[in-house]
């Protein structure tokens, strides 16, 4: 692909360290990456950014050899290369941090760090050399690894941030000239991130070429030299960090379709009804002392940084991970959601953002995916396909779901349509309370628009709805009232004109 004309304005060295052009990858009907381009230079930190599902990880995995591209070219040091697998990538000098981590849980920290290349003396693993080598990379994070972290600790007893550090150490231990970090900081705290950035700067100084992915805008502007933006599986542009602004980057990420995200009605529901759900001092794993009232016809937003207890509260209400203490009342009656079946029967619906884990029944048909709640709520014994199809059709139509037929496998649909099927299963028999746990993760913009239009309509019909979204724009546009979570507690309530991004950030970032 020829470079865009304005690229000539940038002082690009003669030859990029790594150059990727026109790579694509599709899984069945789901296109993960339609046209990825990336030019990486030695001695730079190159940020890759794009919303969930925009193809960043796929692009990285293609470079690292663990995903086989359908099309496209990878040029390393001026020569076209075939990255036939992770081993080939290792030999070519490409090291990668995997977002989902590539650690062996029952092996120790030091074994994991050295696993790709175990030091040997004769036929045996040189344990001393292994410990010494691992120690060098562990030492880089001296003082920020947290407690109970040692070279001989097995990875499965570590916290999420510690595991992420191990994966970073493992990546650094490859000593590869090209280093790819796919969301290495998502679980790290401030001091850990600072230390990591110090290391990155040093590596940059050594002339390494580094790809860095993060969703945190502040991190991107703190460490990046250039940024490449991906949208819907396509590279939309590359620019110097110094020449751009967060707002500009967001505009590139969102593209022209921004308007679709924000539905027409952002104002609070005209007349909220009776209290549908009421929590008093609810505490459990990941949240404590949560109290609020949710009214019929209201969309209550859960805000704050990711993982501050929002999901945990929703899962507790649904009985997936019951609360330890506190009271819940549903329609004024005490309610103990011991398990999801109890909650479903009581009229509570829950839509998880983790479709693959909690939502879709992979490998089965659309009909089978849309019916389980209907079975439970009506205590059905027989499953007549024609009756079920007739029941499910209006629910699917309400979401503008596109599908070829009920007997097609769910995997044949795009991510957005899969999520619509999962949501539609709750709409055959209307619940009283709808819990949306980051429901738009990884789905396309038009599907989001369909989803939020429906959510507003359901609220207007009297349903009580809680919406947690990791995307602030969605939250601000769709919630009537927002509870901001910080470290498992509700620290702020935003209503009316307070519902601004400024207040949301202020409450989310203040020390808990």
């Amino acid at each position, binding site marked *: 692909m020829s470079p865009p004309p304005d690229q000539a304005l940038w002082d690009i060295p003669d030859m990029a360290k790594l150059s990727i052009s026109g790579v694509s990858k599709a899984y069945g009907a789901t296109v993960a990456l339609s046209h990825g381009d990336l030019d990486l230079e030695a001695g730079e930190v190159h940020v890759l950014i794009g919303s969930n599902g925009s193809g960043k990880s796929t692009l990285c995995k293609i470079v690292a050899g663990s995903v086989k591209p359908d099309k496209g070219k990878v040029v390393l040091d001026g020569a076209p290369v075939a990255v036939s697998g992770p081993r080939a990538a290792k030999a070519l000098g490409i090291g990668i941090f995997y977002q989902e981590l590539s650690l062996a849980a*029952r092996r120790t920290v030091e074994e994991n760090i050295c*696993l790709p290349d175990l030091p040997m003396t004769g036929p045996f693993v040189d344990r001393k050399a292994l410990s010494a080598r691992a120690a060098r990379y562990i030492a880089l994070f001296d003082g920020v690894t947290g407690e109970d972290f040692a070279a001989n600790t097995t990875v499965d007893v570590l916290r999420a941030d510690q595991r992420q550090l191990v994966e970073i150490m493992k990546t650094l231990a490859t000593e590869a000239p090209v280093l790819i970090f796919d969301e290495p900081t998502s679980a790290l705290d401030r001091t850990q991130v600072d230390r990591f950035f110090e290391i990155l700067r040093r590596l940059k100084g050594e002339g390494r070429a580094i790809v860095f992915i993060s969703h945190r805008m502040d991190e991107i502007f703190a460490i990046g030299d250039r940024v490449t933006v991906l949208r819907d599986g396509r590279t939309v542009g590359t620019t110097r960090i110094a020449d751009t602004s967060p707002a500009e980057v967001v505009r590139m990420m969102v593209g022209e379709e921004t308007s679709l995200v924000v539905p027409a009605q952002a104002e609070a529901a005209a007349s909220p009804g009776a209290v549908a759900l009421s929590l008093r001092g609810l505490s459990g794993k990941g949240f404590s002392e949560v109290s609020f009232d949710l009214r019929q016809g209201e969309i209550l937003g859960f805000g704050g940084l990711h993982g501050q207890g929002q999901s945990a509260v929703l899962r507790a209400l649904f009985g997936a991970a019951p609360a330890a203490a506190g009271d819940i009342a549903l329609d004024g009656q005490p309610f103990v959601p011991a398990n999801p079946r109890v909650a479903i029967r009581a009229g509570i619906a829950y839509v998880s953002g983790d479709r693959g884990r909690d939502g879709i029944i992979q490998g089965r048909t659309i009909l089978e995916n849309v019916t389980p709640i209907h079975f439970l709520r009506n205590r059905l014994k027989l499953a007549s396909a024609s009756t079920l199809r007739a029941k499910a059709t209006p629910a699917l139509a309400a979401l503008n779901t596109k599908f070829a037929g009920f007997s097609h496998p769910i995997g044949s649909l795009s991510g957005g349509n899969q999520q619509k099927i999962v949501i539609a299963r709750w709409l055959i028999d209307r619940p009283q309370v709808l819990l949306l746990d980051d429901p738009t993760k990884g789905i396309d913009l038009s599907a989001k628009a369909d989803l939020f239009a429906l959510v507003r309509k359901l609220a207007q019909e009297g349903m009580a709805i809680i919406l947690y979204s990791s995307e602030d724009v969605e939250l601000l546009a769709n919630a009537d009232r927002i509870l901001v979570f910080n470290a498992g507690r509700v620290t702020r309530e935003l209503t009316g004109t307070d519902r601004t991004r400024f207040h949301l950030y202020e409450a989310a970032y203040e020390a808990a």
Partner: protein
Amino acid sequence: MVDAVAQPPRNPGSIKRFIERYPFLPALVIMLVLLALNGLWQPRSVGLVGLTGLAKTYLALMLLAVAQTYVIYAGDIDLSVGAIVSLVNVVIVAFMSAMGGDTITVLAAMVIGLGVGLACGIVNGVVVAVFRLQAIVATFATSIFFTGLALWVMPVAGTPAPATFWRAYGGRILEVPFVFWAVVVLAIMLYLIARTRLAIQLLAVGDDVQGAYQSGLPVTAIRMRGYALCGLFAALAAFCITGDTASGDPLVGGKMTLFSVAAVVLGGSALAGGHGTVVGSVFGALIIGLINSLVYFVGTPSEWQNLVQGLAILIALVAGILIGRRARS
């Protein structure tokens, strides 16, 4: 294993970590308890003669459990180990009875036996790792094939092994029974193998095959080597069977396959792979042996013995898994 004795747990809470670190400990305790019970009911059973007999009878199962462990490390399973034992048994007995029973022949037979075991292991590795067939059904199919081969080599049981062979197995070196030397050699081998790259790689593959692949490990080759190692140890197990029974039998190993799997689980290794020790499997095999002898010593009526053994093994399997899980939570 040596470290286990050297470093006592630092505080009470670390006992859990200790079991986590040395997953064979519950098996060791169960084994020692069974040994004590055996001694209580039949003091002679824990004497030199009794222990020699125990080792002589169960050395084969110990080796076969070790063989199975290497495959289970990687999250695979080998249901053909018993058939490999049978095949190696009849091959070496047929060879020795054809060539005469002198020492050179015996050694040559053992080399051939190891070669046969290795070849069988490689066949399993190709079928499971390269062709990506389900391990459980594919190794069942190869077990039928290996049994066919064994029947071809020796259609009926009964060809005697030369006296050199079984006398050596049942004999003594420097006044110490041969089987104890064999146990010492086995311990050294296991220690050395545990130090190789393969041991760590097999466990990493069993832990998270995708992660291991993404880390640049040659996953297919590693699983192949696991099966090859399994074949070699199955051949060693066959030597012990041959020494113990002093004859060739094309079906001798058949019953041992499921016991080898049970021994591995008893030893604290995870069937799903990624976690375990070969030492534990040795203890597991001994637990099975000690249960069998204890049931006999306490005077269980003969027709009830199998049932009591079966129940005791089931309880030990379940208890072992529950203890191992509690240690981790």
